């Protein structure tokens, strides 16, 4: 009962949001070679500490938090700082422990190594 009352009251004293953050999809390139899948994402304005790369079963998700940059009053603007978020279904088995991510000049690079069993192997033909 008491819970219900507090819910009803909430609408009147709802806390005003200081900022509404938008989330946008970063532009991504995906490459593959025999050893790994390589993913590159444009995340300008993001610091290393704001990046999160998660791999859960077959889904890779990247989120990057962009700190609001306000060096003064905005007099002409084309964008509001937005966080980046995107997830991918990785269609093949990936060595989850070997996933590495690096951030270089606003570009996030994620290396998804293939397990040894999934790599193509060269079989040497021996004379019988």
């Amino acid at each position, binding site marked *: 009962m008491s819970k219900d009352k507090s819910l009803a009251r909430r609408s009147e004293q709802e806390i005003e949001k200081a900022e509404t953050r938008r989330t946008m999809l970063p532009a991504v*390139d995906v490459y593959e070679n025999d050893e790994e899948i390589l993913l590159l994402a*444009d995340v300008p304005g*993001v*610091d290393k500490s704001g990046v999160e790369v998660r791999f859960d079963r077959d889904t890779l998700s990247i989120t990057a938090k962009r700190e609001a940059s306000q*060096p003064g009053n*905005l*007099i002409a603007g*084309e964008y509001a700082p937005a966080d980046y978020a995107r997830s991918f279904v990785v269609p093949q088995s990936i060595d989850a422990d070997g996933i590495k991510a690096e951030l270089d000049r*606003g570009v996030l690079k994620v290396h998804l190594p293939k397990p040894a069993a999934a790599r193509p192997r060269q079989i040497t033909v021996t004379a019988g």
Partner: protein
Amino acid sequence: MMTRWGDIWSEFDRTFAWMDELRRQMDAAFDLPLSGGAFRLSSGVPRTNLFDNGSQLVLQADVPGLSEKDVQVTLDQGVLTVRGERRVEAPSGYATHRRERGTYTFTRSVALPCEVDPEKAKATVRDGVLTVTIEKAAHAQPKQITVHAS
């Protein structure tokens, strides 16, 4: 009767042209980063913000993947121009599955809203964001006027 049918078709054409135009405008209005990320022509290339903090003007632009040497900044007669080039090449030996990050060159010019001191301008690139800081000219600086009791 034949001519009437012709009229109807031209009416259709006009309607479709109008729909195409509407869709183009909606594409421009919504910032969907699916084709080339933040770098759609609708928002300018690259997306730029200009700030005024009293004594300085600060321009910020998203330039992911670029470093200082890839960007040229010039200041001429109160117009700030930013030029740059971004090349995205598939790493050698890799097959490409998805390609959204564009290769492009850009030039953006901004007429500055007040006089500035071109000697005190500096530009940095950090985490894929270009920041140009320009000191305002002495007479364009805000002044504090003391109120005296009469």
